[in-house]
């Protein structure tokens, strides 16, 4: 529980002690992990929770009548409640566990999309979407002979709201937009974007893969219809993620994958589906993942999302100032409202080379298009170097990074 009254003290050195991997060395240098937008590291509490689960109550859930299955079921149900509170959903039946954001969006595109989009309709996304929030809609629009419309962005990497408004018409059946860009860190004004869509009765999916761990998210106050994210990017384990959907939408939607827990009864003539959210969870649920996600949320809450947000903002600003001073470095994405990711290019050098050189200094960044090729095309570049931050990153690490960057450029030039 976060309390608004007692402002917690954020102690990054203390936080770092919770992440075992951070004491690792790479090429004889301490690991500086700046690829958090790809996947975050895990605190000991999450790692231990998985360990403990398999050592004490691992079992298949919901239909077992014995004690360890009861314990596992309880843990799984508790995870739903935990996520519900974490994102401010109304009811835990609105929380569907998926493999990750990609599957969550695929589920929505398949189940909701195929039901509501027909020939001549339109689906709106933005120029800065991750491939996982592009291709499922492309496939849907192809199949249904609908049109995929793209909201343009400014040179600084912000959605052009006026253009967006003009695109909202009665043919539009869904808007799907990222909360925060994984490539350039832009925080989109999702509340406003949702309000505008709702004025035309258009539902919205928010891709929150880069948001839930960087900022407070309240799906009810945003009034999002769907909200998707991955545990592995928010200090939780791989292999689990969430699709939130408003109950009234989920109730009406057909199932996605079939088999296992999503069924209430089966005969060769007729199959009845289970209630939400089970209707959308086919196969043995990932109890391990649910337990890891619970622990990750507890960890985030124990530090405080406001504290994390502030710290990460400071880190991003410091990093920005520092690399701006390096000759021939150009920052890609200069939105006023940013968090998490800092993308840049070095004129005359390939991003790949910078990445390889930084690695020799122990600094892990990502290079390339970051699964946002259309966004790269918008900026007329093949890719960027991206440093992306988490709560455990420090100013000292930024210093290591900028110094390594200078040296790398020297070697490469």
């Amino acid at each position, binding site marked *: 529980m976060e309390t608004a009254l007692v402002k917690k003290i954020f102690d990054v050195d203390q936080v770092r002690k919770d992440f075992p991997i951070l004491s690792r060395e790479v090429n004889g240098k301490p690991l500086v992990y700046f690829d958090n937008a790809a996947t975050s590291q895990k605190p000991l509490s999450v790692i231990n929770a998985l360990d403990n689960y398999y050592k004490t109550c691992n079992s298949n859930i919901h239909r077992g009548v014995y004690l360890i299955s009861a314990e596992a*079921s309880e843990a799984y149900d508790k995870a739903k409640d935990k996520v519900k509170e974490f994102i401010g959903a109304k009811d835990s039946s609105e929380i569907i566990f998926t493999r990750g954001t990609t599957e969550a969006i695929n589920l929505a595109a398949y189940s909701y999309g195929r039901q509501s989009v027909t020939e001549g309709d339109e689906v709106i996304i933005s120029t800065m979407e991750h491939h996982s929030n592009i291709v499922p809609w492309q496939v849907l629009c192809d199949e249904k002979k609908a049109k995929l419309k793209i909201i343009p962005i400014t040179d600084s990497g912000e959605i052009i709201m006026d253009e967006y408004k003009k695109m909202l018409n009665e043919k539009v059946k869904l808007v799907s937009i990222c909360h925060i860009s994984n490539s350039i860190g832009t925080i989109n004004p999702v509340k406003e974007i949702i309000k505008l869509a709702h004025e035309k009765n258009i539902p919205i999916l928010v891709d929150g893969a880069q948001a839930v761990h960087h900022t407070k998210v309240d799906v009810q106050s945003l009034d999002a219809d769907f909200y998707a994210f991955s545990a592995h990017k928010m200090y939780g384990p791989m292999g689990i993620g969430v699709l939130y959907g408003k109950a009234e939408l989920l109730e009406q939607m057909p199932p996605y994958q079939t088999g296992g827990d999503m069924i209430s009864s089966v005969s060769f003539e007729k199959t009845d589906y289970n209630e939400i959210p089970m209707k959308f969870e086919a196969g043995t649920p990932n109890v391990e993942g649910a337990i890891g996600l619970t622990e990750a949320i507890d960890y985030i809450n124990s530090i405080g999302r406001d504290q994390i947000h502030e710290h990460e903002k400071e880190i991003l600003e410091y990093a920005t100032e520092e690399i701006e001073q390096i000759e021939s470095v150009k920052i890609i994405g200069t939105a006023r409202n940013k968090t998490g990711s800092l993308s840049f290019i070095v004129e005359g050098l390939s991003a790949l080379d910078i990445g390889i050189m930084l690695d020799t200094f122990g600094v892990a960044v990502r290079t390339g298009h970051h699964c946002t090729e259309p966004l790269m095309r918008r900026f007329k570049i093949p890719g960027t170097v991206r440093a992306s931050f988490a709560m455990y990153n420090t100013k000292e690490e930024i210093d290591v990074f900028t110094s390594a960057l200078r040296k790398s450029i020297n070697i490469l030039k």
Partner: protein
Amino acid sequence: MTKSIYEIENEITDEFSFFADWQDKYEYIIELGKKLKDFPEDKRTAENMVKGCQSSVWLVTERLNGSIVFKADSDSTIVKGLIALLIRVLSGKSSDEIVNAKLEFIDKIGLRQHLAQTRANGLAAMIKQMKMYAIGYKTKEQLN
């Protein structure tokens, strides 16, 4: 004076505290089930069925001097015993009392932990259905 829900719950908690292990508890639960009044054959209909995942429960109610009387049955011996406990606590109470009943005895005698699989045995569905009946009656009363 009839006992309150709270008092009956305490009674049950006391009774169960005598049992050293779960076999004895279940033996007692089964015993209670066997003592449950015969369920009217003609009420054993799909309409009166509360579906758990692995057992079927039939439940009917009757209005008696401002209180609600429950009758129920199950194809599972243990579930029938659980029903007997619920009926002992809730039957003959006012709709208000039933709606507000916390049923903490379930936790206290360790049943919740043991039967966390309430989806499987239908206990959760059963309690929900009993409360739904009470809410229904209450709404009717208020309309009259």
